[in-house]
Each structure stands twice: as C-alpha cells, then as structure tokens.
C-alpha cells in the first residue's frame, strides 16, 4: 500500500497529491508516468509524474477529475492509501540544449509540462511557455511556470485570465516571427489540442514532441491497448512513448480510440455515484 502524504486542490477539478513510493522516486525522471490502482476493485490508470523527491521517496501526481477513477481518487485524503503504484514507466523526456524552445500545457497538461520546462531551462535553453485552459479556474501553477520560463503566455478560451485565445494563436505568432528561431516545441494537453499544435508547427517544420494519453490497461507493454498509429506503423505508448514526434501521429485514429469506451465510462460514474449516495459519502468535486 502506498500512503497519500499530502493533498492540494489546484482548481475545482484538478488535485495534487504526494504519494509515498520510494521504489518509483529513486529513478523517476521528467516525462515518465506511473500506473495507479486505488483499491481491489480499481482500474489501472496512468498518471504523469509531475514531480518527485528522491530523498523523501515521494512522487507528486496531479489529476483532473474526469470519470470514476479520478473522481474517487479526488475524494481520498492524506493518511489513505493506494493499492498499487507502479513505475516509473515510459521513456524520460530527451533533455538537451536545443536553443529556443516552446513548452505548451493545456488544462491538466500544465502539470506534466512543468518538470519538462524546468529541465529544459536548467539545460540552458531559452524557454517560452504557453499555458491555457477553458477558464481561469482551471489554470494552476502560473507562478511555477513563470519561474522556469524566460517568457510565459497565459490563455483562456473565455478570456477570464490572460489572453482570450486558444494556445495555438500565440504559438503561430511566435513561429511566424522571423527573428525568433524555434528549435523545438513540446505540447501536453487534451489530444485535440495536441493535434492542432502539430498542425500549426508542421508548415514551419519545427519538431514537435507530444505526450500521448491513450487508454491503458497494464502499462507495461503486455496488452497493446495503448497502441497508436504512427506514419511508420503502430507503437505502444506505454513502452515506446509516452512522447512521440507529433507530426507522425494519426490523430483521427487516436481520437476515435479514446472515445470507444465512453458509454462504459459513463456507466461507471453512475454506478459509483449511486453507491456513494447509498453509503452516504458525498460526491465532491463535480460542482
């Protein structure tokens, strides 16, 4: 069992937790993920390693409450324990001094882009960061991102914080500015956002790294459920990724696969809310 040591509410649907897991912390690197299972009945869900402390043996996870598993996780508190916590999985981000780079985080994607941004900055890159979400309540870690970026642009769809724009707008402006030579772009967020980022960078031929969030079952390369179609054939996100060259990804296939279990996901939430109502536990975080 893996104890929850700390919990923070970052926005009404995004929460942070520190988990006691020395076997993961000892080797964790930016870009990798863990597989979490809440209890005996739980599914195995992938979550990015948002931060780690090797000395204390802890891993920080940040998650958005979307369905049964993440809502349930959000109801747990320090002192509670998780049944499984496996990792670090996947390949770490390739960190080098590339020159000037852009780091983009959409929604809960701000969490995983932060350690990558920090590592790129430490490696000597000039880092421009763009973070965005639907509305201001979903933006978090603006201060942290600012601290590790040379320049930070904040966008919201409704204009309630920063620019009223999709993250791809400032991206296109920067790419179109001939005085700035962008060596690489990282984008993490909803699949649809990553798709449009890669469409934006393609005409400029700027290598664009995305972190794919396919549905996973084991997370160790055993089932192929996480497979993604790339230009040169299918690959497993859990073993070969999670980061890929965004220009090679077949986004339509990815988006379609992500929605295949929607009906069952809805059923799981209903069943769980019903159970919570029966045993009197409040379903929080869904206001």
């Amino acid at each position: 069992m893996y104890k929850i040591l700390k919990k923070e509410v970052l926005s009404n649907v995004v929460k942070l937790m520190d988990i006691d897991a020395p076997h993961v912390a000892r080797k964790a690197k930016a870009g990798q993920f863990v597989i979490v299972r809440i209890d005996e009945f739980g599914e195995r869900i992938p979550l990015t390693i948002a931060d780690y402390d090797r000395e204390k043996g802890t891993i920080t996870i940040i998650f958005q409450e979307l369905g049964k598993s993440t809502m349930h996780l959000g109801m747990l508190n320090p002192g509670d324990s998780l049944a499984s916590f496996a990792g670090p999985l996947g390949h770490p981000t390739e960190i080098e001094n590339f020159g000037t780079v852009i780091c983009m985080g959409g929604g809960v994607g701000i969490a995983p882009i932060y350690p990558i941004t920090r590592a790129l900055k430490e490696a000597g890159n000039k880092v421009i960061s763009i973070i965005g979400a639907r509305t201001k309540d979903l933006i978090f870690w603006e201060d942290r991102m600012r601290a590790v970026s040379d320049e930070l642009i904040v966008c919201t769809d409704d204009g309630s914080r920063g620019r009223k724009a999709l993250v791809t707008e400032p991206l296109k402006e920067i790419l179109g500015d001939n005085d700035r030579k962008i060596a690489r772009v990282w984008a993490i967020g909803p699949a649809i956002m990553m798709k449009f980022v890669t469409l934006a960078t393609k005409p400029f031929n700027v290598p664009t790294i995305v972190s794919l969030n396919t549905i996973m079952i084991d997370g160790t390369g055993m089932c192929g459920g996480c497979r993604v179609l790339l230009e040169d054939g299918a690959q497993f996100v859990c073993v070969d990724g999670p980061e890929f060259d965004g220009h090679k990804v077949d986004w339509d296939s990815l988006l379609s696969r992500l929605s295949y279990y929607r009906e069952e996901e809805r059923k799981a939430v209903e069943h769980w809310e019903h159970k919570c109502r029966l045993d009197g536990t409040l379903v929080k975080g869904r206001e």
Partner: protein
Amino acid sequence: MAELKPADRMKIKRHEMPNQDQVIRRGNFEEVALGYAAETARTEAERCLQCKDPKCVQGCPVGVLIPQFIKALREGDMVKAVEWMKVKNNLPAICGRVCPQEVQCEGSCILGKKGEPVAIGRLERYVGDFELSQRTCPLVKALKTGKKIAVVGSGPAGITCAVDLGREGHDVTIFESLHGPGGVLIYGIPEFRLPKGVVHGEISYAADCLGIDIKTDHVIGRSFTLDELLEDFDAVFLGTGAGLPSFMRIPGINLNGVMSANEFLTRVNLMKAYQFPDYDTPVKLGRKVAVVGAGNVAMDSVRCSARLQSLQAKQTGEVPGEAHIVYRRSKDEVPARQEEVHHAAEEGVIFNFLTNPIEILGDEKGNVRALRCVRMELGEPDASGRRKPVEIKGSEFDMEMDTVIMALGTNPNPIVFVDAAGLERTKYGTAVADNDTGRTKKKRVWAGGDVVTGAATVISAMGAGKRAAADIGKFLKGECSWD
C-alpha cells in the same frame, strides 16, 4: 479394496470428469471441471499398473513420481501422496488443471496404447486440491545461508525457482511488475479453467512457508535495472515470460474493436471486467466476435467471449451473440488442449477452419464492421511437419463482426532488457540461456520459461525454473564456477 490383478485393473473404465452443465456454465465464470469425488479418485487410481519402467514419467517435463503418488492415493494415504508429488512439483493444483496431459504424461501412459490412459492430470488435481485445503505438508526452509537471490517475474517459472531456492535456505525476493503474483496464471488463464483462489492459495502457501518476499508493482528495467539488482543480490533469475502481443500485418488493425487476446484476457481475468461495474475496468464486446487463432489463448478468449455475450444477453433479454474461432489450418492442427476445444464446442463456439483473415473493415466511425477472409486448403508439410495452408485464389468473403480478437502468439516483454549489457538475445527477442542450467551469457544471471523458449507451457516453465534453481544453488555453494 483387495489387491487387484492387472487384468482387473484394465477392465476399470477411465472416469469422466464431472463438469458444470454446458448451458448454465455459458452464463457464468465459475470453474467448469468440478473435480473427482474421493471414491472416483480412488478407483481411477486403481487403474494404474505401477509399471517398473513407467513411460508416463518420461512424458512429464518435470518427471513427477507418478506411480508413487498414485499408489499412495489408492492406499488412502493422502499425506504421502502429497509428499511424493512435492518431490518434483510444487504446484499440483495448477498443473493438474492446465497441463496438456494428452501429449505429456497421459500421452505416454502404457494403458493409452490399447485403451484410455490413467487420468493422471485429474488425480494430480485431486491431490493438489487436498493439500490446498488441508495443508498437511508444509514446505520447510533449510538453515539460512545468507545468500540473496532476486527472481524477476512471478509466473510459474519464477515461482518454482523461488520456492526451490527458498527451501535451500536462501533469501529470495520476487519482483513483479503487475499488482499480483502469478503471471499468465492470473492475467491470462480464465477463472473458469483455473480459479484465481487456487493460484493465490498455492503461491501464498509456498511464500508463507519459506518467507519469500514478493514485491509487486516493481518493473525491472525501470524501477531497478538488472545491473542494479546484481549489486544487491548474489544471483538473479529472469522469468519474465513472453507477454508482448503480436498483431497481424493486415489493414484495419487499429480500428475500434480490434484487440489483442492479452488486452481482452487482462481486462476480463486480472481486472475482472466480467463483474463491471462492481469492478472498474470495462470490456466492450460486440454481438459478433471473431477470435483469430486456435491455441490455448484463442480458446480462452473465445470461451470468455461466449460467457460475456450470455451475461449481456441476460440483461437485454436478447439471444446471446456469436463467438467464432477463425483459424487458417484444419481441425487436426489445432494446438490447444483437447479438453478446451471440446468444452468450447459444447459452449456453442463456432469454428471456422481453413479460413485466413486478410483485412478488417470498419464503418464511418472507425469501428469494426467485418472481417475479410480467404479460404485455405492444405498443401505440402512444412518444416514443422504440419501441412502448410495455401490460399484458394478468388475465395475472398466477408464475415460480419463487431469485435476481432487477435490470438496469434507473443514475444518476450522487452522492458527487463533495458540496461542489461551482456545479456544476449536471439533475433526473436528471447533470452539466450543454457537449457540444462538456465545460465545466460551474463554472469550471475539465469533465465527460464517463456522468456527463453517463447510461448510454451506452464509445466515447461516450471521445469526451467527448477533446473535453474538447482544450478544457482550449486553456484552459490561454490560447487561450480561460472565459466
């Protein structure tokens, strides 16, 4: 019973295994084969001729002392039967259920020459189940040696190796990447064939007796590399299996509704999707399911499909959907255990032999709509001695399907090979290891089971685990050097 003459023994007919009713069992995941009653086991045991040169033992990959355990059983001395069994096999409740006995022990039994062989597997299961409930013969740990051994993977190879080394007094730690031990026994083979309670029972009994530490959620190659394990442990055994699924290289493989047998079986068995939504993991299955292949994996997938379809039908009030096997060779080449094929047919599975998929067709939403196949005929025997299927030109046809499950074999899981310099592998990705000792090309590293042979059997994995344990024991005592 008075001592019988061989002629009398040969008159006794082989006892059928009592099974759950074939219609009822299609609607549940409970065990199909119910096990012999005490009296049935006793009379079945009377059939054995106690051969001086027992052929059955030669047919068993680990050489179980078959005449001895059967004799004890029929004399009513169950404790002794268990003792004889555990000389060679620590997991009889498992092997008795899943070994392909018809090509191993029973396939070699002398009685099989003219009539039907002794039901060795069923008797083995009887002895194993007795021990699981009675625990008469705990494994004993020898005096502590102070040597530390890491076993990577908790399938039959790893567990067997760990148990044998534990008995010798070594400190054994098992590292397993999933959340529970057992390997294929828990994520692949379904509950109705091998109840998970039996697997947990066998493993925890052995681990408790011997103080074996099982660390789940530890992915070797990521949490720790092989080289790091070698710093902390005197020897390392790799029993990581062959879990990486292969997909056919045909168009449409990435459509929604196409999955590997491993994905399907992991959802259903390890994650208990047949109890969704009480368990969180769902599995989506259409009314028409095609399973491609005809090995044990395919048979397990198709039988799970038939069950899920029945459970769905109960809820909707419709008639259950169809579960198909699609196999490019003929009935005679089917590699699965006979009993499974027989059970599948009883459960209403539809077999399409000499049929080879060439494309998966999708609808406008990207979901599977049909499986395009060609008919095959048998040509000349190939290198494996089996007649090679060849395509009949112009015989393409479409089978309407909503789900396609690929059960086409697997390759070794690659993660463990990260940062393991010197560990040689074949072009198929399997670890190179000596067959008799399990030694790899990397010093102090042994390997066995599917990671070395590719997908094989439970008992061959156990055999490899045993041989490696013996060699590790000798090496640690200084009775032999590495080179």
